[in-house]
């Protein structure tokens, strides 16, 4: 009985098989990462039985976008590039301006007694507003909050907001709560 080795398998077509699989995966899959602006909608209220809570005028920062994608910020013609700065100034109210939101002293962990501004940002758009413009405005407003939070985190903890512990992040969120209220859109711009 002569010992016979295992017969060699012809692997010449292996490359072809691998190529076939490779091409299949190239065609059937995508590489893009899903990213986007996270927002939360207010819950649905069937009828307007409850009156919305009264908000003082000085506490509200109004942003209107019309059908021609123009901005009206606090009753002034506005530019999207300045929106973030204006919103930040309004939310923070560093000089206690009487036209800007009032502050209430609140007890906040890590900070102790801290004056928290009663700000609300009100955003209203037209049915004819372009989605791109709407999203850019939303982005600027969210960015204003995020920058303020980040600045406070650096000042208080010497670290970026994203690197803080959850309890610290929550404390900062209590000082700068994100309040962006969206009003029902108007239909002044004419056709849909």
């Amino acid at each position, binding site marked *: 009985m002569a010992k016979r080795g295992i017969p060699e398998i012809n692997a010449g077509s292996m490359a072809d098989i691998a190529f076939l699989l*490779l091409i299949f*995966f190239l065609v059937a*899959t995508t590489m893009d*990462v899903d990213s*986007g602006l*996270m927002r939360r909608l207010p819950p649905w209220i069937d009828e307007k039985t409850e009156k919305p809570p009264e908000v003082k005028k000085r506490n509200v920062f109004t942003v209107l976008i019309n059908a021609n994608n123009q901005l009206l910020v606090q009753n002034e013609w506005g530019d999207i590039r300045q929106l973030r700065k204006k919103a930040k100034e309004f939310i923070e109210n560093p000089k206690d301006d009487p036209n800007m939101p009032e502050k209430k002293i609140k007890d906040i962990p890590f900070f102790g007694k801290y004056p928290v501004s009663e700000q609300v940002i009100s955003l209203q758009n037209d049915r*004819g507003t372009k989605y*791109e413009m709407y*999203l850019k405005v939303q982005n600027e407003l969210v960015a204003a909050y995020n920058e303020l939070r980040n600045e406070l985190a650096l000042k208080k903890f010497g670290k970026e907001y994203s690197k803080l512990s959850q309890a610290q992040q929550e404390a900062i969120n209590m000082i700068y709560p994100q309040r962006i209220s969206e009003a029902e859109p108007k239909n002044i711009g004419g056709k849909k």
Partner: protein
Amino acid sequence: MSKFKQKSKGGAPKINTSSMPDIIFMLLFFFMVTTVMRDVELKIKLRLPQDISEAKKIEKKSLVSYIYVGEPKPQFQKIFGTEPRIQLNDAFAKLSDIQAFIEKERAARPESDIPFLTTSLKVDVNTKMGIITDIKQELRKANALKINYSSRNKPKM
């Protein structure tokens, strides 16, 4: 003379291709790991907004349902017109279908995951806000409150 004879006979030397499958497999595994399966075939023109600095990466893709909005692609324009339309899964849909769609998405997932479900709105930049507002109202009625406005830029790490 015989010294040189052999050389001129040789022709191009054969390249060893035995490691080719290994190389291709490596590429294959790279693509298998880094990519995800294409989920739907788009029937609309979709150009997502760019330069959204506050965009965040969606962590759990299994908890996301997608709503596409945009102008139908040219081959569908004869039937569906050029006005922006909603696409759910692989078909065009009406506004009234959204609530049923959300219910179906919820039923397909374990109950413990339902509060974390996110609806991702993939909307073309040229769409008017009217239709988006209507969709948002439908989502509020369906109590799907976590939404994500999809954008194209790379998220911050």
